């Protein structure tokens, strides 16, 4: 049976490198055969926000298709798909109150609403937990 790792994330998308680094670590965990739990707290609930949209970039001189702007929701969906293909699970929980405060309820499929109690349960049932705090 695959072991499980838990991550807690706090940073919103598009504002620093910690979000991307966290997804890199999650990607490696999935590649390494681990189930992964993610508890998204504060601004991190916007990482899987379903309404993130690509756009053209006039400064780069590229259309929306050419720019192919990265969307964390797409990265997370790809990670969930990758985990599923390996018989693993990426279980992503958004802090419900954080979602309410921010109007971030529309998340991609596979993301569920939860509370710090979920994080506690995640941590108790994981071989290790990494909290990537904001600054």
């Amino acid at each position: 049976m695959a072991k499980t790792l838990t991550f807690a994330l706090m940073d919103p998308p598009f504002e620093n490198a910690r979000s991307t680094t966290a997804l890199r670590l999650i990607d490696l965990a999935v590649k390494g055969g681990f189930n992964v739990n993610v508890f998204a707290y504060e601004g991190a609930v916007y990482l899987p926000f379903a309404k993130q949209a690509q756009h053209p970039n006039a400064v780069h001189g590229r259309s929306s298709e050419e720019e192919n702007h990265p969307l964390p929701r797409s990265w997370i969906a790809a990670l969930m798909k990758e985990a599923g293909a390996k018989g693993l699970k990426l279980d992503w929980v958004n802090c419900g109150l954080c979602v309410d405060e921010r109007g971030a309820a529309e998340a991609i499929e596979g993301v569920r609403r939860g509370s710090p109690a979920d994080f506690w349960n995640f941590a108790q049932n994981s071989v290790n937990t990494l909290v990537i705090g904001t600054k």
Partner: protein
Amino acid sequence: MKVLNIVEAAYRGTLEEQDDTIVWFCHAMKGANADIDVLLRGNAVNYAVKAQDASGLAFGGAEQTQPPKLADDLAKLKGKSLTATVREAVENEHERERSKIPLLDRINVLIVPRANPDGGEAFVRDTAVRIDMNRDHLLLLLCQGSQLFLQRWEQKRLATLARIASVDPGE
């Protein structure tokens, strides 16, 4: 109106945004005819390094096709009459390279065990020329005790030294 935009928080979301958001903002403001220059400070001076390669990011089947090219973005700013950007960055990069040289390889440390041997001999504060060094070392209006000593010791060598700091262990 003249604007100086200072960038010092580097690599904030550059992978997700595929550029630096402040450099991008400068491009856009320049497009609106803003008279703007950019100063790269701190880690942001690394934006001027050409050999950066941020390609290859992929999560599952989602691959990044347009990774950030920060040096190219700076070069394009330069093409928009923002020459100060790259020049400042390079100067700061040189300073950073210089800072990698161990401190003791860049400075001379002169330790004078007794800066006022005449006063010591007479057991008074004044030097032989009646200067109270304890009241003069901050003003530096008169010849410092250590300099007085060194002048006697090696006049020519002293002239080549630029004093960065004076330390009075008695204070």
